[in-house]
């Protein structure tokens, strides 16, 4: 018997992982949620058939989406996390003792429940006493926030589906409004290798550029996402991701990481020419 999970990266390119067994499957009000077990990637979570995370490579995504802004902003106290029901972002944030409060807004309660049960690797810190989970439409939540957060992390699913409202100008504009005057927003910025993905990536960048004075993109290698190469957005009203970044300050925290380090921080913003061109086209 062979049992494979396959995700289409394009109509002509598939990505497959051999599955040992399926641990969970359900349809929530919002999406289909599946958890599989595999030899090569450990447990992995798929939503509406799209790969969300694997135990083997999730550290790259979660470290890069959290530590990059945390090494730039000198004094993050209040954080808003959008999506992130698997808990990976919260796990990384929870390592910073200086953070006082984290609001996490997630549409789908079932995702959190399932991840707590099957993915303790990422969901381990969701019960941290600084974390408040709000089950609500994210767009609605952010619309009603003003000048509140030091950092917003947008850990959304892909833009075709329940999260499509999180890739819009109204969302990024609302985030800008929800941040304090020196706030930072970091978002998962999709991939740019395949043509359809590149178009979406450009649209995201265009909309963030329209909403924030500083808008940069950085990269990471994530084997299980489209083309294995993923981008993040760094948007801010005040801080530049390199000029205002302090490696000594971050290193003094003594956090142990598997992917992120302060040299890589600088390198992550050095993008290949084809991506620079795609970004320039919409700036």
């Amino acid at each position, binding site marked *: 018997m062979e049992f494979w999970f396959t995700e289409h990266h394009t109509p002509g390119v598939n990505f497959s992982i051999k599955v040992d067994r399926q641990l969970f499957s359900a349809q929530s009000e919002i999406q289909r949620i599946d958890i599989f077990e595999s030899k090569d990637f450990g447990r992995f979570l798929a939503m509406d058939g799209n790969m969300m995370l694997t135990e083997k490579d999730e550290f790259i995504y979660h470290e890069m989406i959290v530590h990059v802004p945390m090494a730039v902003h000198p004094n993050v106290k209040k954080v808003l996390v959008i999506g992130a029901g698997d808990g990976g972002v919260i796990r990384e944030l929870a390592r910073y003792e200086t953070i006082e409060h984290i609001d996490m807004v997630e549409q789908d309660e079932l995702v959190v429940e399932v991840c707590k049960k099957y993915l303790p690797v990422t969901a381990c810190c969701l019960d941290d006493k600084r974390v408040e989970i709000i089950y609500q*439409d994210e*767009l*609605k939540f*952010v*619309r009603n926030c003003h000048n509140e957060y030091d950092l917003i992390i947008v850990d959304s699913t892909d833009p075709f589906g*329940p999260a*499509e*409202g999180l890739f*819009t*100008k*109204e*969302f990024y*504009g*609302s985030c800008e*409004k929800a941040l304090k005057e020196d706030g930072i927003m970091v978002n998962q910025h999709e991939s740019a290798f395949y043509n359809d993905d590149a178009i979406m990536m450009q649209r995201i960048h265009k909309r963030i550029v*329209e909403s924030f004075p500083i808008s940069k993109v950085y990269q990471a290698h994530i084997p299980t996402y489209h083309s294995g190469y993923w981008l993040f957005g760094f948007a801010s009203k005040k801080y530049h991701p390199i000029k205002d970044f302090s490696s000594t300050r971050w290193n003094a925290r003594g956090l142990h990481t598997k992917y992120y380090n302060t040299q890589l921080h600088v390198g992550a913003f050095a993008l290949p020419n084809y991506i620079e061109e795609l970004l320039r086209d919409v700036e």
Partner: protein
Amino acid sequence: MQLNQNRMPIYEALNNFKKERVVPFDVPGHKRGKGNEELTNFLGDKCLAVDVNSMKPLDNLCHPMSVIREAEELVADAFGAAHGFLMVGGTTSAVQSMVLAACKAGDKIIMPRNVHRSAINALILSGATPVYVNPGVDNRLGIALGMSLKELEKVIKENPDAKAILVNNPTYYGICSDIKGITELAHKHGMLVLADEAHGTHFYFDENLPISAMEAGADMAAISMHKSGGSLTQSSLLLLGPNVNEGYVRQIINLTQTTSGSYLLMSSLDISRKNLALHGRDIFEKVRSLAHYARQEINQIGDYYAYARELVNNDTIFDYDVTKLSINTLDIGLAGIEVYDLLRDEYGIQIEFGDIGNILAYISVGDRERDIERLVSALAEIRRRYKKDRAGMLDHEYINPIVTVTPQQAFYGEKYSVPIGESIGKVCSEFVMCYPPGIPVLAPGERITKDILDYILYAKEKGCFMTGPEDMKIENLNVLK
């Protein structure tokens, strides 16, 4: 409803016909799509397979005897009408057929001036004379409302020879007149009541919404099934009450309707009618609740005013259609049309229309809650980023017309073209309107005043899509000699 509303006679006949695999040596010439590969690839072969001609097993729209007849009976049953016609020329053709069926040349027809252009077009075709009832105007919103019963009584007294009264049920903005009171009054004076229900299909399937024309006892009603009813664009219904001669109305319809009625449109009417009859109540409950939620959220943003039943005054606003999401934008210092453009150009959201002071977002069964969140958030962002001082905003949509000659006389009269700036005091021989909503600012036969000219120039400047005149740039107007 008495009949089995699960039936879909046209849909069933088309499915049976497909199974027969009949070789087509008739029109349409694309022959089930085989002759036009590009079109088939674009629309899909299922669609092209049922784009067929009238024939015995499929009946004929001009003279329905079998499946179309049955479909029409089901429509009448579902809508509580004595008869229902399937229409393939849009609600425009349904409105025109009502007017042409009720009035001959020289007959008078009473109507509010804020009718759709199709009603005044019908006057050009028929030669009937309009007698306009002043609709009320809401000064805050700047929009024309419904007809006041008292005002109508006065007009009837002055025009006892009028043949019919045309009623918007509701207006584009969702405002209803007292159609039941109007119908009683009209029938007492031997006049027919024609209802333009282009925006009221859903009234027939939800008792929490304003009364429908057929229930109010009206004689004819034009229904845009393709708006809230879910059928394909251009498909509509014309309903008759018990005192109207079905055969005569069919003759009138056949004066202008195609003899090649589209089975795509007709089957979409058949399927949508069934869906409404069986599920309409649930559908419109959901639409009402989405619209209600959106209104609450939008009114919380500040400055926007999403209005609803609180407007009701038992007179010019007798009732309000709460499925409509009409929003006044003047307090953010932007014209409705400017908000409409920003929503599309900056936020990727297309709404139904924007005019001088209002926008209308069309809420339907196809909407999801998360789309409503996008609309609300985009409106909040537009206010935050673009809010201006209100000074200098024109705040009214409606200007009382000065009717000089009938629309037909003006349209066919001796005319010449003048630059729009020099047209004041002249009698216009053509329409000028913003589209949508398609309510004429000027109709043929009306005198051009400074107010009207200012309005047209303002609407043009704000970016309204102006239509009507021969000169498509609207720099010149045709006026009567």
